[in-house]
């Protein structure tokens, strides 16, 4: 089963549930966000819109990396969602430390990042500041394929 990685500042929302999960045949969504562990109301809102046939987990960067390394995860089609590219980088680094990841064989899709102060547009809905962009180029250099795509039917931007 395939593992998918996505950056989206909205985390679990309608586009994920109604378009990405069916399109990728996802069975398990893992929200990788340290601060979500202390946000029970936000968790409840996301659980409320997740259909019962999908598993939804909230993990820290570290615990998500351990989960990714578990053999049983290979039996599930999982979507790991991170809030921004910095969180994605931390997650991949933790996976790397566990020897659980090969950058050459995976792909990161950036769906949406908010237009914040000092950020510039990379593609439709995707904004990065200088630090984000440094990480973006670093990850590409490591061999990671990164695309920017809001919906499955949208064209992929590189």
């Amino acid at each position, binding site marked *: 089963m395939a593992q998918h990685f996505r950056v989206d*500042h909205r985390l679990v*929302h*309608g586009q994920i549930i109604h378009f990405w999960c069916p399109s990728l045949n996802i069975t398990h969504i893992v929200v990788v966000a340290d601060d979500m562990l202390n946000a029970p109301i*936000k968790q409840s809102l996301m659980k*409320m819109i997740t259909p019962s046939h999908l598993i939804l987990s909230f993990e820290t960067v570290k615990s998500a990396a351990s989960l990714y390394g578990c053999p049983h995860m290979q039996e599930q089609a999982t979507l790991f969602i991170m809030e921004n590219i910095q969180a994605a980088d931390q997650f991949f680094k933790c996976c790397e430390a566990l020897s659980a990841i090969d950058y050459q064989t995976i792909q990161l899709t950036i769906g*949406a990042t*908010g*237009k914040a102060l000092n950020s510039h547009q990379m593609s439709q809905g995707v*904004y990065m500041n200088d630090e984000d962009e440094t990480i973006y180029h670093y990850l590409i250099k490591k061999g990671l394929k990164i695309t920017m795509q809001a919906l499955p039917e949208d064209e992929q931007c590189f």
Partner: protein
Amino acid sequence: MIKCVLISHGQLAEALQSAAESICGKRGHVSIVAVEPETDLQTVEETLLKVVLKGLDEPHCSGCLILVDLLGGSPSQLTAQLLNEPRVQVVTGMNLPMLIGVLNQETTDLHALTGVAIEAGTKGIKDLKKAIGGTHGTTL
């Protein structure tokens, strides 16, 4: 008075306010928060908090009712910060009948107004052919 805040994807909230006010007249206690596709969510979250707190600080304000367009969308997630506040209620699935129902009430009871919003919002949804008891007359 109960402060009413409409929050939606894009310009929907503003359009609904305009449509509702064209039916039941202008109301001063309604505010709009728009979540545009490319907006930084933290900024909108702060805006929503400011709008609600400003409303609650107004004289004679007994609470704030937030109407949200879509359960689970970003606008509804932004209300998470306010769900523990007893003077705030949040109703999702905002539509025109719901808004008209709310604007036509002069109650200062927040829970009663929440009930009005839900009832008006759902009552306006009908299978019209069934509701009128089947079709009558000629076809096109």
